[in-house]
């Protein structure tokens, strides 16, 4: 009897040892997205979320048995950094997310400690700047370079022979970094400029604009969101005929309506299929339209988000084959993302550098022709 018991105990130990040796298969990867689904800059939230959803659906529908299911859970931060933490906590609590996509630079910075603590990989699919690159090792930026994009605007103004520039920017990191990039290049080239940070909900810019007009400002740069539609209208109402420049956010429909058409002619940096992999980008747009009934209003956010999500999918789909039991999931995924050297995406050929930022997405200069329409500027 005692012998039998010993045999049973040994057998159970053997089974336990066996089960301990097997690295449990990853069945699901939960991905969260925190973005502006309402209030402000919704073109950076709604369509990118759809693009990510499309990428996940395409993967889940064709994945093999051994590949993990990927689930997407979305939270609205109303483009406010204060909203990032509650949204993240909710995603972690309710869905135990493994990877977080967040488009707001301030929000990304806000969550730095939490993602390291929780072992979550954060990916910003819209912005990629030096500030973000200086953050922790779990943060990746699969997007255009904020500084370069705005530097291109500065170069454009220099090439146009503009001598005095007013730069107004929204009080967040992205627009601040963009404004500073413009300011730097202008200053380096001896162009007089003034960088003013507006208030978050400011809609009346008459005083600033009136002052700029009086000081013979030759160009106006509006780095922000739909509130600057009012500024453009107010500028034209003040009789300012100087050219307007804007950031990548001009195609928000509210922006146009707030400007009452004053936005037409504004030059900005933007990204269209022509700037990336034209064939893949058009395929994506067709799929997007087929899935959601319409094309995205502002093209570059969903294009970048689609690439960012597909880069993640391209790596995690082999997790059950490639990840050894000695490596944690977060370490494995971080290492895989850092080794992305040549991903042929809709935005072009993308690589990820050692600081987690990406290279390969390059914006061009465009001009607003009408509501939602841009034309490329030739030098």
């Amino acid at each position, binding site marked *: 009897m005692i012998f039998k018991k010993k045999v049973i105990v040994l057998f159970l130990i053997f089974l336990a040892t066996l089960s301990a040796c097997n690295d449990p298969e990853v069945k699901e990867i939960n991905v969260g997205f925190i973005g502006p689904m309402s209030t402000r800059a919704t073109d950076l939230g709604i369509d990118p979320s759809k693009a990510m959803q499309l990428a996940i659906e395409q993967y889940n529908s064709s994945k093999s048995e051994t590949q993990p299911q990927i689930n997407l859970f979305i939270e609205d931060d109303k483009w406010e950094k204060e909203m990032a933490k509650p949204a993240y906590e909710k995603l972690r609590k309710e869905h135990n997310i493994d990877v977080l996509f967040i488009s707001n630079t301030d929000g990304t910075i806000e969550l730095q400690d939490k993602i390291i603590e929780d072992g979550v990989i954060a990916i910003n699919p819209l912005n990629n700047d030096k500030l973000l690159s200086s953050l922790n090792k779990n943060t990746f930026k699969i997007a255009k370079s904020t500084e370069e994009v705005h530097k291109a605007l500065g170069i454009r103004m*220099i090439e146009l022979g503009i001598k005095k520039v007013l730069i107004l920017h929204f009080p967040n990191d992205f627009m601040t970094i963009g404004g500073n990039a413009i300011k730097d290049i202008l200053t380096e080239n001896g162009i007089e400029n003034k960088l003013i940070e507006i208030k978050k909900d400011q809609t009346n810019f008459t005083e600033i604009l009136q002052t700029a007009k009086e000081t013979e400002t030759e160009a106006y740069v509006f780095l922000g969101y739909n509130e600057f539609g009012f500024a453009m209208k107010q500028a034209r109402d003040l009789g300012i005929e100087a050219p307007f420049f804007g950031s990548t956010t001009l195609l928000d429909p509210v922006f146009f309506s707030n400007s009452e058409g004053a936005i037409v002619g504004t030059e900005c940096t933007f990204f269209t299929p022509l700037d990336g992999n034209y064939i893949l980008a058009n395929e994506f747009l067709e799929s997007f339209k087929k899935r959601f009934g319409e094309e995205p209003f502002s093209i570059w956010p969903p294009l970048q988000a689609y690439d960012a999500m597909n880069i993640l999918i391209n790596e995690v789909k082999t997790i059950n084959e490639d990840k050894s039991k000695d490596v944690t999931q977060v370490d494995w995924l971080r290492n895989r993302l850092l080794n992305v050297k040549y991903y042929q995406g809709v935005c072009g050929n993308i690589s990820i550098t050692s600081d987690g930022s990406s*290279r390969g997405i*390059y914006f061009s200069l465009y001009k607003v022709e009408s509501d939602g329409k841009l034309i490329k500027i030739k030098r």
Partner: protein
Amino acid sequence: MKIRTKLILSFGVIISVLCIEIILNQIISDNAADTYQKLKTQALPTLRILDKFESVNNEFFLLSSNKVYNSNLPLDSQNRLNGILEVELPYLKTELVQLSKNLELNEEISIKSPVIIELTNDLISLGNEVNNLLVLKDDYADSEKMQTAIALVENDISTKHAQLKTNLLILKVNYGNLLEDYQNEFSQNLKSLSNIILITGGLGILFGIGIAFLVIRSISKPIRALNTAALRVSSGDYDADISLNGNDELASLGDSFNIMTSSLKGNFELIKSNNKEIKQQEERIRKVIEASPAAIILMDPTKKISLINKQTEKLFGYSRVDLIGESAEKLIPLRILNKGSIVDDIFSSKNKIDTLGVDQNFYGLTKNNEELPIEISLSFIEIHGQDMILASIVDITERKQQEADIKKYVEQLKSKNKELEQFSYITSHDLQEPLRTVLSFIDLIKEDYNDKLDKELNTYLNYISDASIRMSHLIKSLLDYSRIGHKGKIEMVNCNRILSSVTADLKYKIEESEAEIHYGDLPTIEGYKLEIRLLFQNLITNAIKFQKKTEVAKINISFEDKWTYWQFNIADNGIGIREEFQNKIFVIFQRLHNREAYDGTGIGLSHCKKIVELHGGEIWVSSEEGIGSTFHFTIPKNIE
């Protein structure tokens, strides 16, 4: 040569050809796979990277040159240049390193990859320098910047580009040649493979056809002969022997065939003989059935008659045609059928053999609607899986008459017997009266004329008195004999108690004779109590009486349980009975000894016999003169 050997050899040759083909195919396939592997992992990836490298190198040089000489360089071109510098050239470097790692160190690409990587790094660095120099249109107006930029492009970038291009070109040419060699080798392997398949396939087919022809020919001829012989046998010609040459399986089959035909012939003759015997047996059985004194009817489960014999026709007056296929109920009077179908009863009790008509009145119905008493024995039998009833019918008209006669005689006998017993009783009883008168008068004479009677007359009177007393005893015995069983009733009789009572009654005689009586535990039996007591008393008295003068009588009473009856044994050590007298002792008034020797009436054993027979048992003696006798009697356990 045996067919098996032929087939093994044939297939052996074909399999050998196939094996050779497989081995050659395997060798060449391995070579082809090896070549293909080299193509896949070595030549093609290397050429792909080299092509891409060359293309990017050329594009980079064009874009950088364009950038220097075109102040209106479109932003798209600038972006592309940035893409090459930031993504594509670093990626190609990584790919080249990876490829080198996967290849052997002595591979040309592995040897040259450090040079290519260094040149690429230089180009990236130079490209970034040009990019940084010429950012704005104004930079193009800056002669110093322009001079530097042009120098960078025309000297440094151009040189590095050319060096890289040369290296790439040499590698491309070499790997192109290598690719061509591998392709040729691969193609040659495939061609060789194809030739081997063609040649060995052709040889295999030729061998196959040849062997098939030989084997078919060696098989088909004997088979045809066998077929012809088999057809002859099937048409009844068992003398159809065949002769096949050789010592293969078909020749053996031919021999077996001959043995088979011979055996068939013998078997058919045996069957014929058996059939004849069967027919004879059938005939015998038929004759037995026909000759049976009883009428025999065979019925099927639906009571339809399927067979009858001649006696049936005779008994019932029907012909076979009238009865075959008809219901057996046709032969039973309606009044009996109305009481319930006897045939149905019989069918409901399979395997039961029943008899109708014995101890009961059963009648058959003749064609003339006459009833006749019959006795039927019904037997359930199974013929060819079908339940059947075999009825054996006997006309018992005569027997019935005999039985009636016997019954009449028995009644008459009983009446006579009764009368005789009555006569015996009356006679015995009435005879006592004159005897008593005689004795009374003798007593009176003796009493009244005592003084007048002389001695001789007294003696005569004594003789008359003794004779009368003896006659009285005889008459009394006779009366007792006739009374046996008249007033008794059957009851349970405890033999131990009976013997106890008898020995008590005979106490005086036993003590006087010093006889020893032994008996064990005796059973309780059914019987007439008084008669049983008398039976034991007579036999014990007999044993005491006929004892030897010189020995003490030893009487041993025992019994045996004989399943349906009890057997009692009363053994003594008396004088015994000579064998010739042993049958006479049970006859009434039969004496073996004179009265002077042994007193008695000579009716005791007759009583015993009558008592035993009254109970339905038997009595007999086994004895040896001078040794002793044993009287045996049996009493049935169930007395009717």
